[in-house]
């Protein structure tokens, strides 16, 4: 069992069926802290000390956000800029996050096939997430492959429900350390969401 921190950033949650369903009731799960950045800091006045304290209290850090323009929403970038201070998170004396684990959970409108070097989006998720990977690396954290829900525009209401349940199961497995990242990577190194539709 490890404590999981979900840093959630969605500027327009009211318009996202999939994300609303995913986080529905999530705060009731034990050992998981759901941290809703846009709700807490609508005016971007991030409380840096509080955020650092939260990070120290958890072993597994999840960044959950929609994939906007192949990147994260602005508040999460601002969060990274301000919270991961030099001398605290990185640099010769910045070892606060050393040894922690991190990963991204992402929803995209495009299908997985489009995130291929010969696809519509020309790059794989792993390639597009290189900045996150390097950020974690600089902070001496272990960065796992992402958990992605692709093609959200085309999901039916039932499929949305199924994805939401799968997601909850996944984070509980992460918490209980019963999810085997190595095995999953052999099946699909691009996505820890195993039986996601690859079409």
């Amino acid at each position, binding site marked *: 069992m490890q404590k999981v921190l979900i840093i959630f950033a969605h500027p327009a949650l009211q*318009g996202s069926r999939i994300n609303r369903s995913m986080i529905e009731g999530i705060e009731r799960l034990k050992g998981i802290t759901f941290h809703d950045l846009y709700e807490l800091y609508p005016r971007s006045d991030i409380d840096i000390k509080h955020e650092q304290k939260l990070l120290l209290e958890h072993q597994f850090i999840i960044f959950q956000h929609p994939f906007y323009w192949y990147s994260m929403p602005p508040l999460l970038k601002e969060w990274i800029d301000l919270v991961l201070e030099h001398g605290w998170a990185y640099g010769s004396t910045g070892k606060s996050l050393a040894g922690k684990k991190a990963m991204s959970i992402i929803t995209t409108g495009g299908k997985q096939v489009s995130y291929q070097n010969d696809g519509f989006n020309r790059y794989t998720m792993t390639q597009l997430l290189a900045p996150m990977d390097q950020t974690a690396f600089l902070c001496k954290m272990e960065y796992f492959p992402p958990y992605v829900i692709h093609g959200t525009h085309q999901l039916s209401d039932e499929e949305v429900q199924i994805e939401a349940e799968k997601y909850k199961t996944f984070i509980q497995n992460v918490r209980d350390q019963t999810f085997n990242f190595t095995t999953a990577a052999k099946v699909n190194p691009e996505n820890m969401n195993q039986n996601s539709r690859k079409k």
Partner: protein
Amino acid sequence: MSDFYFQAIVYLIAAVISVPLAKKLGLGSVLGYLLAGAAIGPFAFGFIGSEGEDIMHFAEFGVAIMLFLVGLELDLSRLWKMRNSILGFGGTQVIATAALITLIASVVGVDLKSSIAIGFTFSLSSTAIALQILNEKGYMTNDAGVKSFSVLLFQDIAVIPMLALFPLLATIGVASNHSSSASWIAGYPIWVQTMALFASFGIMVTAGRFLLRPILRIVAKTEIRELFTAAALLLVIASAVFMTKMGLSPALGTFMAGILLAGSEYRHELESDIEPFKGLLLGLFFIAVGASLNFQLIGENPGTVASIVFALIFVKFIVMFSLGRIFKMSYDNNIIFSSVLAQGGEFAFVLFSFSVQNGILDQATVAPLIASVAISMAFTPIIMLFNERVILPYIGVPETQKREADKIEEKGSVIIAGFGSFGNIIGRFLRANGVLPTVLDNDPDRVDLLRKLGLKVYYGDATRLDLLKKAGAAKARIIILAMDDPEKNIEIAGHIKKHFPKLTILSRALHRPDAYKLLELGVKHVYRHTLDTSLRVGVDALTLLGNRGFQAHRAAQSFRNRDESALRDLSKLKHDSKDYLNQARQVIRDLEKVMLKEAETKDLFKDIGWDSESLRVDVLKNYPK
């Protein structure tokens, strides 16, 4: 009474004709006044007669007022900072000049007692003439100005021991025979008089500390402006009279009153109330000096008077110039410094009559001395003119520009008018971020409280142009109008647009009509004071109702922007409205327009870029599963 009017007309005509003429000729106002006085005096055209002496006494009050203003500029901490140049320059100057003059007088054959009195009296320069000239030429802030001021200040203080010690020079019997009926302490033994003098300073300081401020606060609270002016005049006259009754110079009394009020919140207000009186009375003083020039006496002893004048100016110039060299002043500054102070002072008139009263000098000796002092004063503007035209061009230009920063040391680049709940948040915020604003407020209780909290707040009605000037409106970059009364903010904005067009205005407005008026005046930064707070309440209400906090926040930002641009649009339309006078109806009509337009959009605000609805429709239509 008609005589009084005639006198007034003579003085005013003389001033109105000669001063502009003198300025036009580049001679400066002081010389203009002096010439006017000489022309109308009993010894020339004789428009005014023997009463010239009384006028002189009356006009000496102008010097008293000037010293009050000088005192106001000098709180104790600034005085302390200047201690080296005051004591070094001032002290050495007085002692060296006094010693040299005493020596010369003794050599010429005056007895030692009288020589000492003359030496010390001649060591003083004219604050009135020197400061007026320095101000007019803009030298006050450069090295010459600062050093001159230090010397003058030391001299003004040195008058105290001189007045106290002169009686000791006299033979005691003579002193009581010449007792002046005007003084309360005359006729008592010398040691009682001396004790009384020191006691009177104690009384002044105590009264200044514990009486003046509360009284001024009560007067200020009535909010009748002329009453404050009256109180200010009363204060100046009372301190002058008190000191005179204690046998001292009135100027000394007012200077002390000034220093005691220098740190007070009423400083700017007092300054601007008293300033016009100073100007008029100083003018009168210069005229009186001119009128006192006894051409008859001068004509009878031209040699004596000429040598006294020459000795006076020459010795003082040499002493000042050597001091300037010792203290490493640059040549140009040193020349200005030495010439502007090379004359007898107005205290000489006081000290000479004091000496006569005390039997140190006799009337026959004093008459040519007084004439010489007056002539030396008249020479100063001429010497300065000569310097400026002939000597300085060969040496260099005095550094009027370089030391500009000193001048505005206290005048921050932000002025806040009105320090109520609105202004005080702005003030605290700026202060917390290293900007020290100059604050003007006209609520005496609040000013007092804020000062106790250690803030620099001045009492005064910011709608007054002269007070704005005093607070540094000509130099500041920003003025924040935060008064509670919107009409006042609009009034100040009008003044500023007219007189200080470079100053950026940030103004608070209460309602839409105030905002319209400010926008019409060309004020670009207008803040309706409840807009942001009201919207924050709205945001919290929406969030508590279950909306996303960020969405509510973005909705408020968008609402605010639309409301602000609607305000600016409507302010342009307003000119065409025939119903301009009916403000209440206009407000409702505007609000109606704004709200009806808002009703067209029913949903909560949406950021299109983060909204996937249209994308989803597109995908489902063009890329079916």
